[in-house]
């Protein structure tokens, strides 16, 4: 297992742990979106949405830009890809372990 930017990944996984934030990311996967429109589907207050967006921004999953009075958010694919690579490694890890166990058992069996 490679120890690649573990802290950055922690923040990404933390950000992904919340269903509202995952839904926001799913919306942003379709393209840039204003903060107001992002909050519309949810029955939560604008400050609560702002807080979720800050978590996503801190983790590097989204960036924000301002055009006049409107704030827009955009998804950053690179951060998601790093997290996906980690999941991939976890699966590959188990496959390696099974290979190693088979090798051990083949050698040790009478």
């Amino acid at each position, binding site marked *: 297992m490679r120890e690649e930017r573990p802290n950055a990944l922690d923040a990404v996984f933390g950000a*992904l742990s919340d269903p509202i934030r*995952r839904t926001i990311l799913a919306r942003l996967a379709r393209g840039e979106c204003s903060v107001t429109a992002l909050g519309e589907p949810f029955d939560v207050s604008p400050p609560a949405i702002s807080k979720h967006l800050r978590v996503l921004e801190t983790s590097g999953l989204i960036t924000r830009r301002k055009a006049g009075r409107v704030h827009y958010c955009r998804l950053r694919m690179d951060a998601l890809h790093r997290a996906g690579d980690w999941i991939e490694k976890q699966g590959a890890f188990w*496959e390696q372990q099974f290979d190693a*166990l088979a090798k051990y*058992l083949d050698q040790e069996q009478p």
Partner: protein
Amino acid sequence: MILEPVTQRAGVTFRLRRRFTAPRENVFRAWTDPEVLKRWWCPHGWAPAEIEIDLRVGGAFRIGMRRVENSPPIYVYGSFLEVQTPERLIYTWRWENAFEQMPQTRVTVQFFESGGITEVVLIHENLPEINVCLRHRAGWIEAWERIDRSLTP
């Protein structure tokens, strides 16, 4: 071997299935006895560090490995939620000294024996859901296809 990332509401689940030519007791022991575990557990390029396993419900385990002599070890640790020797284990799973603060995940291992062949079914679940965020993006679909290819024999 079957290994498929399955999308669920709780997160991603990996399932693996593998047959070993050995009695179930031996395979179970290889999976749970520190003395045996240290002989096969570490991936290539890694050496075993401390391994502690308290094999009972609520008991803790911690399996260490290091890349080279004197380098700081990394650990997998957790606790047993279910212990049925030699049939079934359920335990929590986290990394220490690497991938820290990664969400806690859960591993279920079942051992089935038939005619001297032991089939091990491993389920690693609650891995963070990522693909749902990206199912509309071609880049991510390609990534998942790449994962499928790398994990499917």
